[in-house]
């Protein structure tokens, strides 16, 4: 691994090493956060290529702007904020591009969700439903219920008002309930 010797270091220590010229220390931060960033980007953007582009761009932008990271001990939150913004940009740029189908919708509707063995179909149903939320609802839902952020943290990260974020999460939950209940009834 290129980041040998970084596992025990805090984020702040790694940031200091990078700023001092140890570029390889950045690999430790990449390894530490790539899964979380990748998961959010994948669900937010709906396809893997876009998600990996967003993650890569976020890490590179964070590296280039590392001197602007005012609280190195909060590097993860700062990096995640960059990713959220990259996803907004990429999602906007590619909104009209054909999305990779997450599943055959007809197959989803006949899937028997009561069977645990059909878990893969359940996962696909969720991604199918998630793709039908507005980008704003999807972002808010993921930040609240998957990343487990507080509304205050979400507001700081997105620049949106707390009441608007609460409304988006509420609408997202309502929409998911309708969409997924239909799937389960089928």
């Amino acid at each position: 691994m290129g980041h040998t010797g970084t596992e025990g270091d805090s984020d702040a220590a790694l940031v200091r090493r990078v700023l001092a010229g140890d570029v390889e220390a950045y690999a430790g931060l990449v390894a530490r956060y790539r899964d979380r960033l990748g998961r959010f980007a994948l669900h937010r953007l709906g396809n893997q290529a876009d998600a990996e582009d967003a993650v890569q761009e976020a890490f590179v932008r964070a590296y280039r702007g590392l001197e602007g990271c005012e609280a190195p001990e909060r590097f993860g939150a700062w990096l995640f904020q960059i990713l959220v913004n990259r996803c907004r940009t990429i999602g906007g740029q590619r909104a009209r591009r054909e999305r990779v189908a997450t599943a055959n919708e007809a197959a989803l509707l006949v899937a028997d969700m009561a069977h645990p063995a059909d878990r893969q179909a359940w996962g696909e149903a969720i991604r199918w439903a998630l793709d039908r939320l507005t980008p704003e609802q999807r972002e808010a839902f993921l930040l609240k219920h998957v990343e487990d952020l507080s509304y205050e943290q979400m507001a700081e990260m997105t620049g949106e008002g707390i009441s608007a974020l609460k409304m988006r999460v509420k609408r997202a939950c309502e929409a998911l309930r309708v969409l997924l209940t239909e799937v389960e009834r089928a």
Partner: protein
Amino acid sequence: MPEFEDELVRRVAAELKRPAALDPALDARIMAEVRAHARRPRLWLLRPHTFRVTPLGILARAAALAAIVAGATLAVSRLRPGEAVVSTASAPEALTASAVPFVLYAPRARSVALVGDFNNWDTRATPLRRTGASGAWVVTVPLPPGRYRYAFLIDGTRWLADPGAPRAPDDDFGTPNSVLTVGT
């Protein structure tokens, strides 16, 4: 119904929290790009000097700039080719606009670039523009209040601290740089 919704949200969230399958080569791609943008090692950033731009300092530096440019214009014919270098960075608009002019007198230079932490030491980001035949190169950079390290790159090969600023001590490799503090 809220209970059902909570349960549904819990099930959805549990599914979405599962690790995403990313390309195993993603880390390598990221690091390759990061290395391409790697910071220049601190070859000439040791113990830099700071000069502060204050309202009085602005006037003094503006006068000095005028004298330098006038003197350089008069002296240009007596300079040995490629030898004389006079420069300055000042912040006359710092109180209002934060547009900071950088001037380097380098009559033999074919190109001059400004590199600093404000442009990630990118040698192509901020080229200076030659002004007429006087040998002066200029560029104006918008800078918010703060402290900046910088130097000039002449002909793409020669690094030079700003002769118009207090000289910073040489580092291990004998290549000093300059520090500018733009006041509010």
